């Protein structure tokens, strides 16, 4: 073990002794209705951060979001979308699937992170989506890891699912990291959306212990 890793382990042990917390029960997952996700992870873990890395254009991050909006609408639960670069297009979604959505149209990354931090503590929400896909990558890389750990701490106090859509691996505290890496051809624009959803290619990058289903 390297000296830094040993120090880290020692610090963790010290914190655990000084601030003991009761083990939290696994409160389950939010099923997505996306076969590729539900089969590998059971859904999106509650009380945890999930990162969806969208490494290329037209890989389906908005399709993923659309599917989540439809699923959560059927369950009558609330969703917040923190749109860091104001890219969401409500006209692409059936109007009835927008009724449970709180859309925060941000104009800067810092604004989006602050809004996400506020919403991550909100008991009335079941899903918070932070869309950073079109954020400037250098600016996103400057977000310190402690910001993501702070968000993790915040969602642990609630029962919500926090999903960050990112252009590259950014979320240090992600319990589950998925990747969309297959761009769609133009011919798929004539395909019904449920078929696109069932064919969506999602790969699992990381699944930490707490996110696994019991």
């Amino acid at each position: 073990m390297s000296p830094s890793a040993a120090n880290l382990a020692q610090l963790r042990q010290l914190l655990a002794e000084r601030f003991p917390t009761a083990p939290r029960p696994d409160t389950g997952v939010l099923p997505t209705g996306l076969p590729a996700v539900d089969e590998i992870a059971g859904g999106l873990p509650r009380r945890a951060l999930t990162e969806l890395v969208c490494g290329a254009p037209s890989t389906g991050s908005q399709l993923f979001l659309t599917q989540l909006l439809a699923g959560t609408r059927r369950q009558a639960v609330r969703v917040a979308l923190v749109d860091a670069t104001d890219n969401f297009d409500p006209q692409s979604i059936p109007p009835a699937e927008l009724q449970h959505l709180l859309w925060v149209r941000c104009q800067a990354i810092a604004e989006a992170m602050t809004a996400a931090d506020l919403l991550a503590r909100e008991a009335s929400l079941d899903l918070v989506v932070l869309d950073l896909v079109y954020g400037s990558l250098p600016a996103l890389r400057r977000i310190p890891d402690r910001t993501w750990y702070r968000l993790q701490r915040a969602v642990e106090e609630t029962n919500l699912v926090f999903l960050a859509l990112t252009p590259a691996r950014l979320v240090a505290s992600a319990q589950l990291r998925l990747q969309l890496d297959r761009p769609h051809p133009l011919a798929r624009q004539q395909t019904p959306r449920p078929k696109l959803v069932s064919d969506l290619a999602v790969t699992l990058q990381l699944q930490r212990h707490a996110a696994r289903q019991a």
Partner: protein
Amino acid sequence: MFAVIHLADFALQAALRLAARPAASLPAALIDPAQRPSVVLACTPAARSSGVEIGQSPAQALARCARLVILPASAPASADAQAALLATAFSLSPAVEMTGPGICTASLQGLAPGEQEPAVRQTLSQLAALGLHATAGLGATPLLALYAARRAHPVLAVGSARDFLAPLPLAAADPPADVAGILASWGIHTLGQLTALPKTSLAQRLGPAGLALWERAAGESERPLVCVAPERTFVASWESEEPMETLEPVLFILRRFVDRLALELQTAALAAAELILTLDLDDDTSLPRTIRLPEPAAQSDTLFRTLQTYLETVRTSAGVTAIQLKIMPIRAAARQRDVFDGALRDPHRFAETLARISALVGTDRVGTPVLENTRRPDAFHLVPPLAELPRAPEPAIHPPLGLPLRRFRPPHPATVELEGSQPTYVWTPAFHGRIVELAGPWQAAGDWWEADQFWQREEWDVGLDPVGLYRLVHTPGGWFVEGEYD
């Protein structure tokens, strides 16, 4: 049985209650600003122990105690304290009399003997939470209860009226000055000595005033209570001598208002539907604001948090000179929530979060999107989130086709290379590429009947080399990439 709640040095307590925080812990004295020359009307025990006495001029009092805070008597502060006293008294009984400034009498007829004193102690605790320190007396008549309240530490229940009254000084029965002088010359100094004299002989010598004093001294005077009705308008106001330039003193006063008004609402079995807050500013303007609560509430913490969240977003051009808070009441809904009804779990907290986010991004940039009834691109508006979600509709028989759009706001201006009428290459400030897949064009136009609203466009769906599906539009203003299909 009757209970009297008594606030000693009422005007001083009322002024201290709404004074800034440091004044509450410092020696303080009350003056009447309208009186010339001003003299100390009342002072706190801390001031008294420093040598301050009633009747001194402010300069004399300050010479005795340099840390002394001089407070002007304030009619709004006294009215607010009186309202707080009344609201707590109604938690004891519906038959309540406002006997005098800082004195309230309640009939305890509805309470069992064993419940009376605990209920009165509970009322004193409520008053303490509202910043008022009271004493209480319990007696068979309102008068006995009043005598007891003036001597209580903090609660005194009178068992035998004769034993209780006998040792009290004559002044306890409020004798007229001339009668008090005559009795003093006779060597009568206590109520017991007075009541030892024959009642009829005293009446013959001192007249009706002497007879009334004897009856008061014997605790015999009984009277019905002049009952008041519970408050139905929920208003509190305050004017400051000096403009308040920070949030803290404004919040301090609002906390006092809210605590009292919440108690009044609870007593009346009502809840707040709207809070109307008006701040008068030093530049002769005012800042009114109506805050509609997401759900009726009567808890003081909830009401206060709502006001605090709003005030944290307010920047004023001048200091605050007056505050008025009015609560619009409503009957609280008595409905048990359904697990599946889609209502907010904590509407008040959600409203606070929404207010904070609105302050961060702007009120016009947060809400639930509602599509407008037009085919104009990007036509929608935002509305506040629904308090309860309607039942979800059945899935559409004909679902939408293709990937949803990720819209660029504003659209990227584009330079497009054409072969004939078909685009073959596209450049934008963000990306460029050879068009390898193409669908379109689709013509669209609308609002032709309104000259300044008319729009017209030609849309193409394009696939660029190596990846990326985009919506390319040609308008009279040029070519644009409107978004990415994602």
